[in-house]
């Protein structure tokens, strides 16, 4: 099999995952398509360096980095530094302890509400939630793709879910 055919057979099965992540990070179809195309071309040139890595996290890491480079250039306001300090993490964890957002929201939330709330989340939280909840990825995989420690993945997930919960609650209150 030629190098290009080998690359295609490894990458194409993960194109949905790549697009989903890019779409959630760029928040529109057109930019997501551009970013995915650029990332795949970049992946092709880096293919030699892939060695034994698993295809999906390897590709998603390139997509994710291409997204953030794009965001920094085109949507700098989207890329805010996150508070990953222990206080921030502890606060976030405590907030999710007494009531999981799932329980409250299961009955009433609709898709539009969730999509809007998730889109409005800072990109750093959005990406871990998309990878965990929508893409079913392990903490370890997410840590590798986002280039952060597993502990940070967990605290960002907790904090992100917390923010998502209050955002959805606010929307519901405003709507009623």
């Amino acid at each position, binding site marked *: 099999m*030629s*190098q*290009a055919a080998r*690359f*295609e057979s490894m990458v*194409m099965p993960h*194109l*949905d995952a*790549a*697009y*989903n992540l890019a*779409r*959630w990070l760029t928040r529109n*179809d057109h930019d*997501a*398509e551009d970013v*995915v*195309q650029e990332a*795949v*071309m970049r992946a*092709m*040139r*880096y293919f*030699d*360096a892939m060695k034994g890595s698993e295809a999906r996290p390897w590709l998603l890491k390139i997509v994710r980095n291409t997204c953030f480079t794009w965001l920094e250039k085109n949507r700098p306001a989207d890329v805010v530094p996150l508070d990953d300090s222990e206080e921030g993490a502890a606060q976030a964890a405590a907030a999710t302890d007494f009531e999981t*957002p*799932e329980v409250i*929201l*299961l009955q009433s*939330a*609709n*898709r539009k*509400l*969730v*999509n809007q709330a*998730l889109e409005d989340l800072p990109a750093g939280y959005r990406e871990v*939630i*998309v990878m965990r*909840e*929508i893409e*079913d990825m392990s903490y370890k995989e997410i840590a590798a793709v986002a280039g952060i420690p597993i502990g940070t993945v967990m605290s960002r997930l907790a904090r992100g*879910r917390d923010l*998502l919960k209050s955002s959805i609650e606010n929307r519901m209150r405003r709507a009623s």
Partner: protein
Amino acid sequence: MSMTPKNSQGGEPLVARDATYYRAPDALRARIRSSIAAEARRQSRPKLWTWGGIAAGMAAASVISWNAALMQARVGGEGVLEREVASAHVRSLMAEGHLNDVVSTDQHTVKPWFQGKLDFAPVVNDLAPSGYPLTGGRLDYIDGRPVAALTYRSRLHVLNLFEWPAADAGDAKPELVTRNGYSIVRWKRGGLQYWLVSDASPADLLKFAHVFGT
């Protein structure tokens, strides 16, 4: 394009159930497939060199710069030049007429031929008495600039000697490296850098460097 919600019932987290899973549009899929094919065609020249015994993915003038930057990170700046020099050597031997633009055993014919073609004057020595007859010269393109390529013979082996201005003024003694079965000896003298490549023995190349004047 389809926007399919993840379809699951029960106690799973909300986002997993209600957030949109954006699937890659068919048009994007098609576009990416054709880009991969185009990129593969563009990279087919390096593959030819693989056949010639040199690893694929070598830096060449046609490979875009950040690919070269990647290589630089992997093998270091010198490694890139060694690859370029080795591949230039292989290319020069791949087809009739690639080796020399000026065919002459006379240094007084070869040296003037470069006049007006380069922004420096290459050093052309006649080493026939030492067993390395000059066979000619040509222009080549290495390290992003035109360079002088002189060709010599050592018995049945072809030697390519590349010359271009050094980045700094200091001289450097001959250093031997091997790259994909080819020996490369490089040195610096009088503001020029010299890269000698051949499949002749390393000892032969070092001797050449010595008699050429290092």
